[in-house]
């Protein structure tokens, strides 16, 4: 069981700074999700934690052990950091059988033979790969290789496991199962898990806490799934964790007026709204309700039936909004056609001061 601490870590490739001044603590026995768009430096951060690249500045601790420090000139090599890693491309060694792949980390750590046997069998059972021991990786599907990689990481370390996009290649059902399985394993042995992904849904489902990274390599927000969903700290986080509409607005006398329009939104501003005049109002498609009584009127431009829900594209005085409606509601309630005039109600709109872009 080990906590992980990044303290003011910066990493550059040549002139390009990938991670800037990042501090992050992962508690003992926690599942921490690190999510961010492709190319934001998630994998770079993890490679630094594993010891494959050296940061420019900062310290990294695993448990109480300082594994990397620029000031103290410490850099523990990867093989002595005791981390189990599932790589993005699985990195299952193609010249070794499934069994040899799983046993390799324990052989390198000089574990006794019977114990290796026992743990490898157990790990393969955990990822449901029992019976494939003699298979070569080329005989396995992508999903099966990924599970071998997970088994190999499990036997590699009981302290800290890093999963880099580990279940992206599994089909929906197996994905669900693996998420549950990872949670069970974690509860069983209490391993600390760092879970890297750009898929916010899987992260929200699996992780105790989530850190959301920005494109420029720092952390936008850290929090539990509830905190992040309920109160995204800024427009970036808001848009990253779900489909979102943004309406540009100006604040005037306690109300918000849409830009390029005379329309004043018919609701009061929340108490904690910032004083900046130009704001973006965020509202999720599922938080817009059709209500004939509402004074806020829009026109339905397009309606798409998606099986379990309807997607409407509604024009609100020139601004396009996406609205989601549960299929059951849509069928029981009033039917809307393209071209219909419709009343709208916003639930929980979020206000973010407009970022000034140069």
């Amino acid at each position, binding site marked *: 069981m080990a906590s992980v601490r990044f303290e003011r870590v910066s990493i550059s490739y040549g002139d390009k700074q990938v991670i800037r001044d990042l501090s992050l603590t992962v508690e003992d026995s926690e599942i921490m999700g690190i999510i961010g768009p492709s190319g934001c430096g998630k994998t770079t951060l993890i490679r630094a934690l594993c010891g494959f*690249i050296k940061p420019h500045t900062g310290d990294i601790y695993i448990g109480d052990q300082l594994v990397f420090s*620029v000031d103290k000139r410490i850099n523990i090599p*990867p093989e002595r950091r005791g981390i189990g890693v599932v790589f993005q491309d699985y990195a299952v060694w193609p*010249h070794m059988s499934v069994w040899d792949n799983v046993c390799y980390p324990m052989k390198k750590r000089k574990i006794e033979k019977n114990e290796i046997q026992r743990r490898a069998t157990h790990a393969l059972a955990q990822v449901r790969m029992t019976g494939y021991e003699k298979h070569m990786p080329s005989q396995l599907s992508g999903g099966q290789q990924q599970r071998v990689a997970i088994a190999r990481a499990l036997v*590699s370390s009981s302290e800290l496991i890093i999963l880099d996009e580990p279940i992206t290649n599994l089909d929906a059902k197996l994905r669900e199962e693996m998420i549950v399985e990872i949670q069970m394993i974690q509860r069983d042995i209490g391993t600390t898990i760092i879970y890297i992904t750009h898929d916010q849904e899987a992260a929200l489902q699996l992780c105790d806490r989530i850190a959301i990274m920005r494109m420029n390599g720092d952390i936008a927000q850290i929090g539990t799934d509830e905190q992040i969903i309920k109160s995204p700290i800024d427009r970036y986080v808001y848009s990253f964790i779900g489909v979102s509409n943004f309406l540009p607005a100006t604040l005037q006398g306690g109300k918000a007026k849409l830009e390029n329009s005379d329309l004043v939104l018919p609701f009061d501003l929340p108490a904690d709204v910032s004083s900046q005049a130009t704001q973006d109002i965020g509202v999720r498609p599922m938080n817009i309700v059709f209500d004939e009584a509402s004074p806020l009127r829009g026109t339905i431009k397009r309606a798409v039936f998606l099986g379990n829900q309807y997607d409407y594209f509604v024009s609100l005085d020139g601004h396009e909004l996406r609205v989601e409606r549960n299929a059951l509601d849509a069928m029981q309630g009033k039917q809307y056609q393209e071209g219909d005039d419709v009343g709208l109600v916003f639930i929980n709109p979020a206000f973010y001061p407009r970022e000034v872009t140069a």
Partner: protein
Amino acid sequence: MRRSNVNPDMARLDGKKFSMDKFLTILSFVILIIVVIIPMLMIVYNTFFVDGRFDTTLFTEIILDPANVGAMWNTIKIALLVTVLGTLVGLFFAWLLGRSDIPLKGLMRSMFTIPYMFPPFFGAMAWELLLSPRSGYLNNWLVTTFGLASAPFNINSIGGIVFVELSYYFPFVFMQVVSALERMDPTLEESARIAGAKQWYVIRRITMPLVLPATSAGALLILTSSLSHFGVPAILGFSKKIYTLPTRIYQLISRASGSFQGIREGAALSILLVIVVMLALWLQKAVLKTGSYDIIKGKSMRPMLIKLRGAKIPLLIISFLSLFVIVVVPLLMIVLVGLLRAYGLPLSMENFTLDNFVNLFNHKMVADSVKNSLFLSVASGVIAMFLGVMIAYVINKIRPRGKTALEIISILPYSIPGIVLAIGVILAWSGNLGLNLYNTIWIILVAYIARYVAFSMKSASASLQQVHYSLEDAARSSGATHFESLTDITLPLIRPAMISGFFLIFLPAMRELTTSVLLYGPYTRTLGVAIYSLRSDGYIVDASALAAMTILLIIIVNAIVNAIVKDRKKG
């Protein structure tokens, strides 16, 4: 994406002064500097410096000598003719096998690979036996049968040299173009046909431009090979005083019989040869812009085959006749003459005997040469293979600053004529720098390693690029040290490339002539040198018998290699 040195000052953080990466990088540079750079520098130094002073008199004397200028023109003339004709022949066969419905393609293809296996000077020997103006078997037969006044063919001429080189070098273009044709998207041609273009128009305006990069790559290979070529002009040209730059260099050095002045003259002339080769490379680049088109795909597709209809049988006969002449006739000739009781006797059953072959085993020089060649091929194969793997690892995985320089140095000997390399090695390792290997087998070994390291480096590089770095990283995270991750993961994964790298060196080293002919001493003849010396001393039948034995040896080794490769594909 991977950079090993995010922060170079912090290498020391690892606690060790030298990381393994650094050690491998430095070792690669040091070895390549010793085997490649020093010999090259020695040539330049000895040409332009006398007693430590800069002096161009030797170089100007050499390049103004009419004999040398004549040799240069011969070299260029032969190389251009071989390149143009070889490209045409190669393109013709490539089109025939890649795009027409001619039958027996498999058989023809395997015949095209045969010239690759044997040294061209064997072909020169065989054709001289057939078409030498005085005693060529075919010439004699034609003269007596048709009552001609003089021999109709003269192989000891520029034309003869071009013909023999041509028959060995056209497969370069053929192979490149055939594989490009196979990877070309057939819809490109089909859509032109659908748009109403005639067959010949499609070939001219669609197919030809698309295979231009492959053609030009093959032609370049022919051009540089022919410019540096020693064996054929040496066998066919010496008796008629037809010299090319490589044979002229050889003549300067052997005439001087070891005197330093002769070696310096050879060195100066080598610089001229290198300039000609470089000029050819540059010209080729300027004239034919090589670029690859995206429309050539990686996977093979079934192309539209052109129906030859009435032309099928005549084209088939022409193809097999030319293949018979190019491939079968020289091999047959070598074997038959090797069986003769004495040179000059008619090729008939009562004159055949196996004595020559039996005698080979009692011949001290021959036995030595077999031993030497086996030792040199195995040793240079193993050493250059590991060296190539190490350099490829440094270039592809460690990626230090200067990796481009490393790559260029390691493939430099590939484009430098073998005879030039030999002179560099003589200048560097016969006492000038404190180490005298002259007349020992080691000086040949050093030259072979320099000459062939590019082969295994390229083969290992291609294979290492397939080994994603996460495979090594996964081993590190599993508790393996850097060294263990190499021996447990990387090396086993590139083992097939290492094995083929070894044979890529072993086979050409077995029949090497150009470099060894300048480096051999009294007891260090190689197989190629032994055959060459037997022949120039007039032991034609013994030379032929030994050549036939060599051919047999090469065929056996090739069969073993193919068996290994096939086995691997199945498993």
